[in-house]
């Protein structure tokens, strides 16, 4: 296999995000990570929905599919089942992944399909210029909530855990080292790995994660340990926000079981021929 470098993963398209957007930092870590994964370049596929974050695939020189709003998990599932040798990433936003696409995301996690989900959580709809999202805090004033939002936010980590993702973690755009480590662990995981990345949208929700500039407000979880949290984990405003890995377990992976059934059937019955296919026990001959 060729030895790959960061540069190999740079596409010829200049990223079109606002200067200062947290997406740049995440892109930088991914470009750093990919050559470290020992996977042939042509086996990477990045699938995304719609949103600022979902432009991500254009800026990497891998196979990529910038699809429609909220549906990346469905496409990624098809890709992985078509060719399990591929390393599939989903890049999504808090709107794309948890609002319109919430159902596909939890079903992906439930099935434990072997893909890595990167949810860029900026707690806002960036691309449509600043409406509140399912992760925005109650009371938030946005274009669509001039009197403040009246909705309780989802906790993406909790949703992924409940839905059954087998690797669940959280990191922060600007915590470069931590982010790299988490991304690496996620990418190397077999089964659905889900990473929530706090991402600053400096245009429509600047400073959403400002409080985490103070390390006292962060609880770094030690890698490898499995923390047990009640269902309100991290929603308790007085406690520090946990960062790190929430779950890392291995159970059977959907796409493997999927192909195992096919292979077993072929082993047992022999690979079907066209002739057998069309024939039938109940057929009769006309002379």
């Amino acid at each position, binding site marked *: 296999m060729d030895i790959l470098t960061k540069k190999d993963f740079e*596409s010829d398209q200049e990223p079109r995000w606002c200067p200062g957007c947290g997406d740049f930092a995440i892109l930088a870590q991914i470009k750093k990570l990919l050559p470290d994964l020992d996977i042939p370049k042509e086996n990477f596929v990045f699938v995304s929905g719609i949103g600022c974050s979902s432009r991500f695939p254009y800026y990497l020189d891998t196979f990529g599919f910038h699809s429609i709003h909220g549906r990346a998990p469905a496409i990624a599932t*098809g*890709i992985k089942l078509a060719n399990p040798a591929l390393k599939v990433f989903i890049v999504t936003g808090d709107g794309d992944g948890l609002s319109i696409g919430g159902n596909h995301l939890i079903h992906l996690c439930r099935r434990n399909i072997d893909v890595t989900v990167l949810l860029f959580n900026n707690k806002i709809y960036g691309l449509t210029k600043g409406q509140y999202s399912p992760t925005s805090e109650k009371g938030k004033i946005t274009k669509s909530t001039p009197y403040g939002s009246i909705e309780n936010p989802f906790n993406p980590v909790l949703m992924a855990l409940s839905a059954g993702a087998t690797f669940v973690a959280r990191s922060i755009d600007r915590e470069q080292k931590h982010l790299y480590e988490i991304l690496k662990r996620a990418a190397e995981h077999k089964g659905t790995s889900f990473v929530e990345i706090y991402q600053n949208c400096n245009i429509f929700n600047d400073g959403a994660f400002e409080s985490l500039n103070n390390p006292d407000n962060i609880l770094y979880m030690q890698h490898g340990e499995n923390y047990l949290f009640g269902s309100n984990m991290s929603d308790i405003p007085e406690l520090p926000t946990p960062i790190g890995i929430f779950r890392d377990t291995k159970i059977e992976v959907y796409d493997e079981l999927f192909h195992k059934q*096919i292979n077993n059937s072929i082993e047992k019955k022999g690979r079907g021929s066209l002739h057998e*296919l069309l024939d039938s026990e109940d057929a*009769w001959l006309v002379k």
Partner: protein
Amino acid sequence: MKSKDNKILERVTIRFAGDSGDGIQLSGQQFTNTTALAGNDLSTLPDFPAEIRAPAGTLFGVSGFQIQFSSEDIYTPGDQADVLIAFNPAALKASIGGLKHNGILIANSDAFKPRNLKLAGFDHNPLDNGDLKAYQVFSVPITKLTREALQEIDLTSKEKDHSKNFFALGITYWMYSRSLQSTMQWIDKKFQFNEDILEANKLALNAGYNYALSTELFATAYTVHEVKRTPGKYRNINGNEALALGLIAGAYKADKSLFLGAYPITPASDMLHILSRYKNYGVKTFQAEDEIAGIGAALGASFAGDIGVTATSGPGFTLKSEFIDLAVITELPLVVIDIQRAGPSTGMPTKTEQSDLLQALYGRHGEAPVAIVAPNSPADCFNVAFGAIQTALEFNVPVIILSDGNIANGSEPWLIPNTNQLPEIKVEYATKPDEYKPYKRNKATLARQMAIPGMKGFEHRIGGLEKDEKGNVSYDAENHDRMVELRAEKIDRIRPFIKEPELTGLKKGELIIVSWGSTYGPIYTAIEELENQNIKPSWLHLRWLNPMPQILDKVIKNFKKVLVIENNKGQLLRIIRSEYLVDAKGFNKVTGLPFKSIEIVQIVKTLTEN
């Protein structure tokens, strides 16, 4: 067999009707298989009740199965029945309208009890008074006779009653001089793990046969001779089965894995059920969380090198629109199957209709043309599915197959094709990484250059934003206009590659009928009948709805009248009028039922008389 009269008939239609629990579909299926083996041509139509299990004895719960068989080629399950087997009053009520004048009614008189009569809305027993004068009525205490026949068997009465459909089947086998053998074998296999039931069913079948034989209930038995057919191996097949086989065969010939992403919905669920059994053919089936995810996974699979297929019906088809739009702009191969049912909304899910044509053509935002093809009978589904796979892969386009409930569940004999004669499907991949441009096109087909993940050096991005030839996002005004035109022209380029439909009748004249899909059978039959009466309309039955065949353009203006026959309110009609500017008229019906050929005979006669 006693040497009674045995009369030769050319064609017969039988209808079985009873409660959902009466085993109607099973009887019908067995009669069908036996009839097929006897060498008749045949056509069947199961008619499911609206609900899974309506309360026993009610009209909502009536399940029907109609079969026409013949020593000539036939194309419909018959307008009206020669024989009706009614298991209870509700079945009688629901079906008697479809029995011919002087037709044979066999009724299970044991079921005509006050409660059942009331549930069916009778205030008296129709078997007892003169209500049914117009028919030859045979009241047979089927329940009682079945129980008697099973005296020795160690089952409860309720369990024994489950065998009464075999008793009735036995009667019909005698009537049409059928062998019991194939059904006996089927029972042997099906109930091999339940000896009592196995025995009971065999006894009941025999008892029914012997009852008809010995009671001299019927004056005559009948024989329908073998139909003359192209030599070869035949099997009976329904529409959904034929679609499934066509898809698998297409993928096979393209050397691709078939990937079905689907969500259950009547009457398309069987596509998922059937294909999920073909794992040793490498067929992949994925039951998704909804229709959107089903097509999404199929599109993803196509992007990664499989051939993606999704199958659904009305409401699910609507939900897939946004993804079809994406397939149009990304120019990926995809087959979308819509088994149409009566709409709008949930409508009447178990009933047939052809009302999704305009949705298939236009049901997407933006200019988003796709290829559309429709089978005209159950067996035809094989070729249509094969052709859809071929077109999707050779042009890199989504292809929509418009089947319907009538075709999906109906069955007919099918000449099993010679596998060598099926064409190879050529899938082209880009070969030169340095020159690769995702939207560079094949000169003939305009298909864009494909490269799939795993192909070294071909890394590229596609997506729903407008793209330039290199595959980069483009907001350029002229580029967009050009891409819109190219996507449309690509569909036009399919035209030379598909078989033109055959014109029935003369190229010029008084009246031409234009139609598509499942109306084929009734129209074919009507035209035969009209010919007998020396009325000869021309007829063009379309297979591809987009692109439209060239022949239409050539002949349609040669007729004084154009009649478009559809199970909708005039959808192809609009296209024909708009494309060819002829004052075509529609003959339309949305009752959840297929046309009867007699209805078509009548309208044609009306139109040609003056």
